[in-house]
């Protein structure tokens, strides 16, 4: 049984949403998604899945807070400690196996509620390594960026160009609070936060809640909605964060592995020709180039295609037409669903000022430092 994204709803998309609690944001996103899908929360949804992480929430056993705002009280609700796309993966399996006909997937993030982000990042490091006190917690991104540049031959200007492309593109997207009119010169004149990455090349934070309704083909046809088909989705985790010494620096094998399986499910052998555009990981500028290589959307040295404008919205293969995470911001475990939202709107032809042409898209996300988990999805209309 094919699976479809039948409804999608969101609330927030501001660096801070002080007027609503996280639960109220979850409710607002859920109501919109269920309206979009044409489903009744308490009647039509078989299973509810929430992706969240206790320390981001500031609540122990935060799973228990998941059901109420999304209609899941006294119903099967499960929580996955991972990116929202991993929850979509759970929904995909439930629909494909015939266990469920309609699954609601929820993620939310209120980075503005966390007053010691640095401290929480540090807690994600291995306890032994943590005591080293490695300064800025984003340092693993710097390590990967330098290794990537050395391997690929990309210069700092190429990384800057990713930030310029995506931050400017986001000016067309009403959901992108971190969009900015910037130039290569602005980026190059800026002091790196973690070498070689400047603040322009590191995504900001955004408060958001996203809810997605995944349905079987049968149900999607019955409800006469606007299905976007979920052709494949897979994820992978490398050697854990606790042993980051063993990460393959300058590469992201987890993304390659996730892509391989997602493509197999979707029957894709040549992603560059068989897909039309992609929303890919870019919370650090270099990650867009690295992701394109690992996804098979560019040969090694993706920066040469970038320079040629190939990944522009009007280029041969648009990458991050939404403005990417550099414009939309990162939202803890909701980051992947934000990118899915943008791809779904594109495929429905409802992306407004960021609309590009395309029948089939790739969505690729990563859980961010210091994790090595990546998720890849293939969508079509």
């Amino acid at each position, binding site marked *: 049984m094919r699976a479809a994204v039948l409804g999608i709803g969101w609330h927030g998309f501001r660096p801070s949403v002080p007027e609503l*609690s996280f639960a*109220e944001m979850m409710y607002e996103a859920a109501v919109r998604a269920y309206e979009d899908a044409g489903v009744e929360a*308490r009647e039509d949804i078989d299973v509810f899945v929430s992706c969240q992480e206790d320390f981001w929430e500031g609540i122990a056993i935060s799973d228990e807070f998941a059901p109420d705002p999304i209609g899941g009280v006294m119903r099967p609700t499960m929580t996955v400690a991972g990116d929202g796309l991993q929850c979509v993966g759970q929904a995909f399996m439930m629909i494909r196996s015939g266990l469920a006909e309609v699954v609601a997937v929820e993620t939310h993030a209120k980075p503005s*509620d966390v007053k*010691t982000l640095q401290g*929480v990042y*540090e*807690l994600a490091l291995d306890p032994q390594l943590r005591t080293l006190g490695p300064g800025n917690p984003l340092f693993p991104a710097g390590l990967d960026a330098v290794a990537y540049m050395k391997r690929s031959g990309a210069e700092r200007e190429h990384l800057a160009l990713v930030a310029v492309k995506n931050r400017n593109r986001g000016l067309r997207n009403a959901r992108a609070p971190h969009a900015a009119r910037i130039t290569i010169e602005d980026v190059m004149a800026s002091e790196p936060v973690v070498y070689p990455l400047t603040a322009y090349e590191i995504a900001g934070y955004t408060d958001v809640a996203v809810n997605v309704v995944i349905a079987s083909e049968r149900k999607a046809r019955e409800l006469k909605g606007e299905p976007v088909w979920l052709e494949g989705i897979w994820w992978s985790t490398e050697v854990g964060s606790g042993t980051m010494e063993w990460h393959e620096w300058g590469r992201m094998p987890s993304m390659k592995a996730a892509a391989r399986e997602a493509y197999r499910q979707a029957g894709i052998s040549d992603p560059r020709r068989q897909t039309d555009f992609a929303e890919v990981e870019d919370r650090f500028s270099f990650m867009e180039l690295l992701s394109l290589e690992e996804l098979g959307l560019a040969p090694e040295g993706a920066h040469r295609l970038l320079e040629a404008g190939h990944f522009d919205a009007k280029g041969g293969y648009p990458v991050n037409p939404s403005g990417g995470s550099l414009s939309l911001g990162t939202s803890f475990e909701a980051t992947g669903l934000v990118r899915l939202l943008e791809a779904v709107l594109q495929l429905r032809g409802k992306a407004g000022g960021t609309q590009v042409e395309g029948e089939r898209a790739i969505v690729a996300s990563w859980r961010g430092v210091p994790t090595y988990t990546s998720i890849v999805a293939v969508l079509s209309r």
Partner: protein
Amino acid sequence: MGIPGRYVKEEELKRMAGVIEYKPTAKYAYSAGQALSVFLKGLREGKIVGRTCNSCRRIMVPPREFCEYCHSPAGEWVELPGTGRVETASVSYISARRAKLREPEVVAIIRLDAPGYRGDEPDFPGIFHRLCGVTEEEVKGGKVFGARVRPRWRPEGERRGSITDIECFERW
């Protein structure tokens, strides 16, 4: 009476290889949100307010923007008298930090009086709080169950929009 083995002092434990001491830095400022903000402001004014579900008509205390059973938006606000009955109670002897409490603490769920409620509904507006002037024996024997109680408010100037604006619930 001896327990087998040797007591290890805390300093000794810290010197042992394989123990890493770490103090997390994790601070949060939770947005209370639309519904709970009104509730907290009410407490500051010495009032307990609840929210009605437009669909099933239940009154929610603590209040919410939505009814989780109907998954529909909440409707009007109602001020409750604050009085109620003890639904269940227990006694704490040890603090959350594992220290023995000087005085055992009686905690309870209060079923609040509310218009339209008979008092035997499985779902009711309620508050989790301390009970004052109740002995351990009254709790253990279940005698305090059903007792009429009301909030003992802190003096107006000391209230700051928190659940602790109510010192405890007491009999009346």
